[in-house]
């Protein structure tokens, strides 16, 4: 991007680059990758609830997901790229924001904003850390006390019947809830799809899904540690 290009002939790649280089565009890319990640966590949460239908059901479901290797890897790569772009944009914008106010206020009192909106970088980093732990726990198995490939139900019970395991999962899901509480609302604004009429509805949608996902995901670790499942 060293030379200026005429708008009419700007190739696609350059336009994407231009999007990344502007603050508005970077937020739009965060919104799009955020939607991809949101749809993934939604499907993932619904899939997880099969734990309540017994070992056979969830193990079978896990097998189904692996039936087509190209599909499995396609999904994995899409998710990895989405997390990478989303997190990189988030961290870059956060660093920029530090530069935008080098001298902070002695006294600053938020008037209307939610705690969730002011802590997005921290809830985001919490999710990032959790994703690494989660993969090591249930996909690769190295931090799982008794890991066996393909034995999804047993692996889940092994990890979550420990107080530490269950706590990490529940805390991370509360963090995810906070992130989505603001994120699902903010993304409409970032994409230019919000206005004063629709904004309250978007806010309800965001809070609704944030609560739904936190409860839906936390149900599994809570059920295991309390002995309802296992």
């Amino acid at each position, binding site marked *: 991007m060293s030379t200026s290009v005429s708008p009419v002939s700007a190739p696609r790649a350059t336009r994407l680059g231009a999007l990344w280089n502007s603050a508005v565009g970077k937020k739009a890319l965060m919104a799009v990758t955020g939607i991809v990640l949101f749809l993934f966590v939604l499907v993932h949460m619904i899939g997880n609830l099969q734990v309540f239908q017994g070992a056979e059901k969830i193990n079978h479901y896990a097998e189904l997901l692996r039936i087509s290797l190209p599909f499995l890897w396609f999904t994995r790569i899409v998710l990895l790229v989405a997390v990478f772009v989303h997190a990189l944009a988030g961290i870059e914008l956060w660093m920029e924001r530090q530069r935008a106010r080098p001298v902070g206020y002695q006294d600053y009192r938020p*008037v209307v904003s939610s705690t969730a909106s002011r802590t997005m970088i921290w809830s985001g980093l919490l999710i990032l850390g959790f994703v690494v732990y989660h993969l090591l726990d249930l996909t690769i198995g190295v931090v799982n006390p008794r890991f066996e490939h393909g034995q999804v139900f047993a692996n889940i019970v092994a990890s979550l019947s420990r107080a530490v395991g269950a706590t990490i999962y529940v805390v991370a899901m509360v963090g995810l809830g906070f992130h989505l509480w*603001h994120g699902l609302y903010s993304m409409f604004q970032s994409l*230019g799809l919000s206005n004063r009429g629709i904004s309250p509805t978007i806010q309800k949608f965001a809070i609704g899904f944030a609560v739904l996902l936190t409860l839906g995901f936390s149900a599994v670790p809570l059920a295991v540690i309390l002995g309802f499942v296992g």
Partner: protein
Amino acid sequence: MRITLDIWRQKNPRDPGRFERFEVPNINEHMSFLEMLDVLNQQLVSEGKEPVAFDSDCREGICGMCGFLINGEAHGPLRNATVCQTHMRHFKDGDVLRLEPWRAAAFPVLRDLIVDRSALDRIIASGGYTSTRTGSAAEANQILVSKPYADKAMEAAACIGCGACVASCPNAAAALFTGAKIAHLAHLPQGQPERMARALSMTSQAHAEGFGHCTTIGECEAVCPAGIKLEVISMMNKDVIKATLGGRASEMQTLAALPPSAAMRFFESEPPKKEQ
């Protein structure tokens, strides 16, 4: 009533600055906040001390000159009002108030409570206008504007450029200001030919000035004395995304046909430079 003030004192942009405490006895509750500061300054001058520097002009909420934080809130506790429109009756006898200037890299403190807001002027200069043919006066009703659009344009045009949105934003973003200026023209037929170029030019200028980015926190809307709505930012974002991805060929043709004016630079790799 009696008020204690902790005011930011800073001699010049290079001075590190500090808070200084002042007691102001005998305040009439019908005084405006700035009149109360006038009383303090009178007192300081008579004691041979340096008065507190603050900006003001109209003192009726229309010029956008005044503004600082009172106890952590931009323009103080009264909503939809500037500090000059805030009266002492909104405070209690014996209150301790902390007055702090707008803080942002793009708003260097010049002295005490006065900051340099010329970055906002440069954002306007980069695209907050329409190019019109001058000559004999045009027929007033030549271009009709429907009432809903006229109202929305008028609402966005109410921005007085005070900078409270930047000051209250945890990201020090100028999104509400820039969005208001963009939406004001984007709602009108006269604003259409340069609409896409304007969105790119003004947002890239805001970026170059060192303002942060919007994360939909909403503090700006709450403290804005002119009642500018968050939706202007959504409209700005939509225009920027459209212009960058170049959805419609016709719009891109219009852009390409624009004269290469210094302000409406489109798609250059470097954003316009900040004036030294």
